[in-house]
């Protein structure tokens, strides 16, 4: 099989995930796009491992490690999103502007009992 096929597919999947991370507003959809980017990297690792016929099979071992780390990342990320949602009442990344400078104050600051 031509090596360009999996490499081009991985590049296009990565850029699709990149678009999703930059364009989505809901934090959980951003996490989904991050998963797409990680899967593109995994596909690249497997393709190059099969191409190089590595005796250590470093590509496949790293793919397994990436999958496990992605599982840990999605668990922690969703826990953080749930905590933000519970404290702020929203999971839109556009509205979480507490650390931004030069913008109007957060509209959630008007109800401090929720943010407590």
């Amino acid at each position, binding site marked *: 099989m031509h090596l360009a096929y999996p490499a081009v597919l991985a*590049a296009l999947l990565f850029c699709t995930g990149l678009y999703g991370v*930059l364009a*989505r507003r809901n934090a959980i959809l951003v996490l*989904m796009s991050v998963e797409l980017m990680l899967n593109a990297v995994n596909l690249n690792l497997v393709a190059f491992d099969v191409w190089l016929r590595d005796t250590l099979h470093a590509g496949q071992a790293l793919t397994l*490690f990436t999958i496990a*780390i992605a599982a840990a990342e999605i668990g922690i990320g969703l826990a953080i999103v749930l905590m933000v949602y519970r404290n702020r009442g929203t999971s839109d990344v556009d509205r979480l502007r507490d650390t931004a400078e030069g913008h109007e104050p957060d509209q959630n600051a008007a109800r401090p009992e929720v943010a407590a």
Partner: protein
Amino acid sequence: MLTAHLAAAAQGPGFLSPTGVEIAFVLVGLATLGAAVITVNTKQLVHAALWLVVALGGIAVEYLLLTAEFIAWVQVLIYLGSVVVLLLFGLMLTKAPIGRSPDADSNNRWVALGVASVAAAALVWVVVDAFRTTWIDLDGPAQGSTKVSGEILFQHWVLPFEALSVLLLAALIGAIVLSRKDDAPTADGAAPAGQAATAATAAPDESKGQR
């Protein structure tokens, strides 16, 4: 006659005579890419998670076509089995709207589209230019069978494997701590949120133990 045959062999397989594996790879790749594009474009949040299942399943089929069968089944177990379920739980617990939500995309989506297009053009150009004359040899024994993967994982990669189990334990405890209720009587709706998140986070750890 012989020299022509040798010249053809030296050039390797051509673009215009694709093998069955290549045709299958391209078709599944188109389906995967389409599902990924719908995932990042759809206005319905739950549909995005369901299209993500199609995209991740397509990538599992691509692993099978690249003879990495063990990684394909790990992909099915962990991504399709637990990560998508976790995402659906997250969508439910944050009270995501079921119907169309017109504000799913932020205002800078055209900037994002430009950045993604430029990145895609640059990456595809570089990759095609670099690997124009490179072929993967898929014949012979499978490179990613369960026997091969187990041998290399427990002969050469034991230390990272064990470190990874510690990392998963730390992530599990972190998720429990993050989603725990701090002061009990304030929020009643938070209790099932914390329990569901921790129960679902335990799933990757279990499936890793099966390896």
